[in-house]
């Protein structure tokens, strides 16, 4: 085992976990959903927050197989992908807080974070909507003869939407450089995906298009990373799409204020007991990285997220006129 590589992956996972935990706390009292009373004091994160807590191994494992020039489309549960692709945690936190200094100037929030400077073309509030966009970005790369690829993350719920079928077919027909990653947390919002899906699931559906696919333990960061490394290399040398079906588990509810009472508590308990973050930490120590170095990685990430929180809370709000900017060239200034 490559200890340095594992340490990098652990750093990435830990950073995501810290970010999600911090954002979760900052969102309490925000959305008055799931019958919860709105708090008297408005939450720092007002809007819905779809946490990827427990799924960090998929984001880290895949994104560490990408180059900076490679592009990425993500989902409503996209903080992990965005962080792992190299986005700045402070600018992300500012966006969650709705501040002018956020990635989207406070216009998008958690569901729409994008960082085009690292090829992150956007999280998306619509399930499966990133798939056609990813195929288009990959089509552009093919037209431009650029040697990069597009990583396209989506959940298991997306495999029941039309754009999943259209996009997989499209990528295979044109031989486009797309790495599809089905991040299968086994639940579609609040309903078990299995109860809503015919056939054998994402992996089988990908194979039915003739797309080379693998199924990996999405809680084993090294397994995810090795699959992604192999498949990105194949895309770069042979062209065409590849598909990773990574099975993982969502620790939290659909959104941060959802207690997730529709799940069997034993199932959640078992998943938390097998926390991929702790498993990775144990592997890292077993591989010989001194505990002091493990703790240094953790302290560094904790400091980064603490800074992100402090900066975000002090950051300026957008001004009213910002509502009228970044819309279109034609007819800018004509709003009625």
């Amino acid at each position, binding site marked *: 085992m490559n200890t340095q590589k594992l340490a990098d992956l652990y750093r990435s996972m830990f950073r995501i976990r810290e970010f999600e935990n911090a954002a979760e706390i900052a969102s309490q009292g925000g959305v008055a959903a799931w019958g919860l009373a709105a708090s008297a004091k408005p939450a720092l994160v007002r809007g819905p927050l779809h946490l990827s807590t427990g799924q960090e191994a998929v984001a880290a494992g895949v994104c560490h197989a990408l180059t900076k020039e490679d592009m990425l*489309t993500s989902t409503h549960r996209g903080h992990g992908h965005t962080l792992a692709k190299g986005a700045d945690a402070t600018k992300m936190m500012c966006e969650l807080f709705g501040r002018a200094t956020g990635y989207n*100037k406070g*216009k998008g929030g958690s569901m729409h974070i994008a960082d085009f400077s690292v090829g992150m073309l*956007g999280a998306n509030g619509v399930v499966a*909507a990133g798939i056609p*966009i990813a195929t288009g970005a990959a089509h552009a790369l093919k037209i431009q003869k650029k040697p990069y690829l597009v990583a396209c993350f989506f959940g298991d719920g997306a495999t029941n939407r039309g754009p999943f079928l259209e996009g997989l077919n499209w990528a295979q027909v044109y031989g486009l450089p797309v790495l599809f990653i089905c991040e299968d947390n086994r639940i579609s919002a609040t309903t078990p995906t299995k109860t809503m899906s015919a056939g054998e699931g994402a992996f089988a559906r990908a194979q039915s298009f003739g797309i080379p696919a693998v199924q990996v333990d999405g809680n084993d960061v090294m397994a995810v990373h090795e699959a992604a490394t192999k498949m990105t290399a194949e895309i770069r040398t042979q062209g065409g799409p590849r598909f990773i079906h990574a099975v993982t588990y969502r620790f939290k509810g659909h959104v941060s204020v959802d207690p997730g009472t529709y799940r069997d508590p034993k199932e959640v308990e078992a998943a938390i007991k097998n926390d991929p973050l702790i498993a990775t930490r144990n592997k890292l120590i077993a591989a010989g990285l001194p505990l002091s170095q493990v703790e240094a990685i953790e302290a560094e990430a904790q400091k980064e997220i603490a800074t992100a929180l402090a900066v975000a809370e002090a950051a300026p709000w957008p001004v009213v006129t910002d509502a009228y900017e970044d819309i279109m*060239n*034609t007819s800018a200034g004509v709003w009625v």
Partner: protein
Amino acid sequence: MTISTMSYAEAACLALREAMKADPTVIALGEDLGRGGVFGQYRGLREEFGPDRIIDTPISEANIMGSAVGMALAGIRPVVEMRVIDFALCAMDEIVNQAAKNRYMFGGQGRVPLVARMPIGIWSASAAQHSQSLEAWFAHMPGLVVVAPATPADNYGLLKSSMASGDPVIYMEHKELWGLQGEVDTAIEVPIGKGKKLAQGNDLTIVTWSRGVGVCQQALADGAFGKLKPDLIDLRSIWPWDKEMVFESAARTGRLLVVHEAIQVAGFGAEVAAATAEATACKVKRLGAPRIPVGYAQILENESRLSVEKVATAANSLFKA
């Protein structure tokens, strides 16, 4: 500068050809484009530019539109063919939630310079799913430009302006106009948002677009308005629309008739009428289709069609107490 006579379809083809020659990032994608498009509006382009720039696609409207958004974000300027606007309904998420909102939602990081061509209108006994005019749907959406040319010259000029605009443009050609012949002067630019005055008069203002233009011109030629002299305006762009021209005219005539083939209820004519009445206190009248699906049999289809008689009756009604 070249002036020549060509069809509405050929004019669009010429505009696209010139844009593709001038800019290697311009491409077109859609079903059956390789054989020239379902209405021949892409004829010859595949031979000239090859299959990587005139892209034949699967019947996957959502992915056609969604991939065009992805292409645009990655530096390509796609022209998207939806075949008929009725099929664009299969791509509404990609148009409304993705193309239109990308720039704003992501804080101005991305641009989506694409032109989505979606032919509108009643044509060739095509019934309820191949005949709609849905300009009002898209006029409602921030982030989108909406254009509806009525002549070969405007189809040439507006397609060029649309491709150059840098915004997502909903480009509505009318299926019954493909064969319409007219002079095209390639030196004339047609800016988005500017109407065209087709007749001068002081008695009433008639605002129309797309297929409505020909019907209103026919009414004028037939003398259907009697002694009334209308100011006749082809709006050409639905969003932004030429308020300056319409308001000036309506303020002068005191009477406004808006004519469109789309369903009258909540049609874009309602917006034009309301905005103009607010600005000028003019009297207003709308003429659009009844709120019924377009029927197949001629007698049924006619109920949804504009006619010289319907336009004349609507115009005259503005003069009744």
